[in-house]
């Protein structure tokens, strides 16, 4: 009896142990992908060229101060394949570590591939169960491999620095937060087209404290605007300035700065930081043709003003508010008209608005002709800015030495 019991317990243990550990992999034995770039292969346009940036923990971690300065923080590999998965398996063939996607920060797609068809990229990464849907996605006019293998950033692994660029997008408005979830949504939606941020390299910054500057020019990655798609094909770019016009109403709580001419001194500027910006797109049907109103309201905050003026606070405030409203409206109008007239692709969520607000008409009629209707739709922009902060009462910084000089001169006369 006891023998049988012991035997069965031993059997269970032997059963459990080999079946349990099969998917165990130590954290130091896996390669964490930080960024991935996908291009068309230069040799054969039917092949994908996948470049991965894998973190090298030895370079970035700190084990008791024994950090090797020379060791790179990342390891970069590329491979070609008929499918993306094929290429990734190819990388696994010669890499020493198993590749893990869960910590991937960004997927960069080369322009040539995006202009051809972006479907395989979105498909592969939404199929992949390891990948997070909050991974950023970007298009680059350069080769995606170059962007992924560039050595950028301050301290972090390069892939993570790129993410930080995206994180603070609401401060610059140069692109839109295009993460995989948004992209997937727009891609599959019947009323909206894709809009993906674009990245470029900018060889400008130098690493401080290094003797030989020319050798240590560090490439800087920057968000340079947006790539406009029609269905699965990329049509072209919006520049950073044009992207800013869209981010007023498509971005997530844009926190942008506008520079306005000083009401009394055209050579001087006043900087106004916008916050609590609320955007609303409204649609109405005018004899079957949709018309749109983009309503923006927000409050401003004077952050730079160094010129004296003889205006009262109320006059100053209302002048500035008018100027700001005009400027924002102009930015939005030019971007919207460029999208409408040049690309003729609805990336502005207009179709979505009509779908929601006039469901019947959309389903009956509009959605079939949307590609023709969208470019011709009337768009009205209404902006309401209120500058309502204590900084209005703040006296501009004055230089007393200069003041004293001018006083002296006037007395001399």
């Amino acid at each position: 009896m006891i023998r049988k019991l012991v035997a069965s317990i031993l059997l269970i243990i032997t059963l459990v142990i080999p079946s349990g550990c099969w998917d165990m992999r130590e954290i130091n034995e896996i390669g964490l992908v930080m960024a991935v770039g996908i291009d068309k292969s230069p040799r054969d346009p039917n092949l994908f060229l996948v470049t991965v940036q894998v973190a090298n923990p030895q370079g970035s971690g700190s084990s008791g101060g024994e950090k090797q300065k020379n060791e790179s923080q990342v390891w970069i590999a590329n491979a070609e394949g008929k499918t993306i998965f094929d290429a990734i398996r190819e990388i696994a063939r010669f890499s020493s570590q198993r590749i893990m996607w869960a910590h991937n920060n960004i997927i960069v797609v080369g322009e040539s591939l995006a202009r051809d068809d972006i479907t395989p990229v979105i498909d592969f990464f939404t199929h992949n169960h390891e990948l997070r849907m909050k991974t950023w996605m970007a298009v680059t006019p350069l080769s995606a491999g170059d962007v992924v293998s560039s050595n950028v950033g301050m301290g972090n692994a390069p892939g993570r620095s790129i993410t930080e660029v995206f994180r603070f997008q609401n401060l610059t408005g140069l692109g839109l937060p295009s993460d995989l979830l948004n992209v997937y949504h727009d891609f599959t939606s019947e009323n909206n087209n894709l809009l993906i941020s674009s990245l470029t390299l900018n060889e400008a910054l130098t690493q401080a404290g290094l003797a030989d500057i020319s050798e240590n020019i560090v490439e800087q990655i920057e968000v340079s605007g947006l790539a406009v798609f029609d269905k699965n094909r990329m049509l072209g770019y919006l520049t950073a300035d044009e992207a800013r016009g869209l981010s007023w109403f498509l971005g997530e709580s844009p926190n942008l700065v506008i520079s306005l001419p000083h009401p009394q001194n055209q050579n001087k500027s006043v900087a106004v930081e916008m916050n609590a910006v609320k955007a609303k797109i409204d649609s109405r049907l005018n004899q079957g043709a949709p018309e749109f109103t983009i309503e923006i309201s927000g409050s401003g905050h004077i952050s730079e003003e160094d010129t004296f003026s003889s205006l009262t606070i109320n006059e100053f405030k209302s002048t500035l508010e008018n100027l700001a409203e005009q400027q924002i409206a102009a930015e939005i109008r030019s971007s919207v008209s460029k999208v409408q007239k040049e690309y003729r692709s609805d990336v502005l969520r207009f179709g979505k608005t009509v779908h929601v607000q006039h469901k019947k008409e959309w389903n009956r009629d509009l959605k079939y002709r949307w590609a023709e209707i969208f470019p011709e739709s009337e768009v009205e922009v209404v902006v309401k800015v209120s500058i309502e902060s204590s900084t209005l009462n703040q006296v501009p910084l004055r230089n007393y030495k200069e003041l004293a000089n001018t006083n002296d001169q006037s007395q001399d006369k």
Partner: protein
Amino acid sequence: MQQKVSGDLRKDEQLLIDTIGQGLDTEYRHLLVPALNNASVLIVYIKGLINTTELEDAIIRPLTAPSRNANEKGAKKTPLPEFIESTLFIAGVKQSQDWTEICDAIVSGDSVLLINKYDAAFILANRGWESRAISEPTSEVEIRGPKDSFVENLMPNMALIRRRVRDYGLRFEGMRLGDRSKTDVVMVYIEGLVNDQILHEVRTRLQKIKTDAIMVSNYIEEFIEDSKYSIFPKMERTERPDKASAAILEGRIVIMVDNTPFVVIAPSVFWNFLQSPTDYYEKYILGTFWRSIRLLAMFLAISSSSAYVLLTSFHQEMLPTSLALKIAADRQGVPFPAAIEAFVMEVLLEVMNEAGLRLPKALGQTVSIVGTLVIGQAAVQAGLIGPALVIAVATGAISSYAIPSFAMSSAIRLLRFPVLFCSSLFGIFGYLGAVIFITLYLMSLRSFGAPFYSPISPFQKDDQKDTLLRLPRPQMKKRPSLAKPQDSVRQTTTPRSQNKSEEGGP
């Protein structure tokens, strides 16, 4: 031993010598009592167990005193029991014919007086042995609250409770357990408050114990507790009379065992082991805060090392990227998988714990230096274990010490191993499976009829005031339903609520 006292002093003495022997500590003292016409008497006692001064002053001196009224005729006619009771200056005098009772009295520390030609013995209560004075509690230190604790001796322990509970219904119901040790066991409860069924259950379970000796209270606990093979303690133990008295006032039953400075409280539920008297001695918000900290500590004690293993070996996607990179960097070149690393560290920790417990004070420093320096720092620097694991294991160890009950804390420390085992095999599924199993198991337990996981499951609304939360005293109007007290009302109205109703009235 069915015999009775014969009245023949020589025969009786011989019988006593046959029964309890003539050892070094046993004294047979012969006297002649002038007041009884020089009748020969025998006093039998154990030397270390009686109060010698009392024996000399209150027993021998009055007995041997020359009779003042020896010649008076009336004196002779005084019946012997009344004579003894009025002559001896001793509090307790009891007459007995039963040899078993007499022998028990002698070995318990009473003196026994036998008189020639009288067929009964007098049991004289003059116990008095060396015992430890009441001192500060050592294993349940509290910042505020009384500083006395139980001792090994029953009498002062009962006094400590009586000093706190002066209710007329307070009962100390004694029984003697253990064929050879003949240990006194006392059930303490308040008549009229305690639930009769539970009391009856405790009494029957105690009476059913047939064993040769009871050394400490745990002997009894193992006999009477439900689910004997469970590793969780199902009765609270305390050395604090304030805690024991509070339990009695909730209608629970306290079991005291002679020679054990800890009493046992029955019934108890799981949440009692996370509570501490200080919860009631400080502001109620602090009490609630401390309880939540302890709950968190219990959770950490069970899961910190398992969490490390399952995150680093199975679910790396659950770590923030920078943390994942840091741990990966620290683990470069570590020769073992995280699971084995964690097991080794946990076992080493328990070894250190065990070594430290019983070490002479002078050696204590050596253990801590060797433990922290060699095992902690050197092993990490040599790259044998990852530093993050040391943090995880140490967090678990510290957390386990935050659980007030030593028995519960040890049980939880032991449970870490199966949980860690399951986590190393199946990742988070194994971990959750193990934790769910433990929780379900806790819910299946009972302590003298009370579901062990109550009042959380089954949920008792009124008892929530004093389980994980600790509400202000005036709000706790009812006693916990745990012991199903006959009288569940602790207080009816409070001054404040009276004021409120007056204010709110029309």
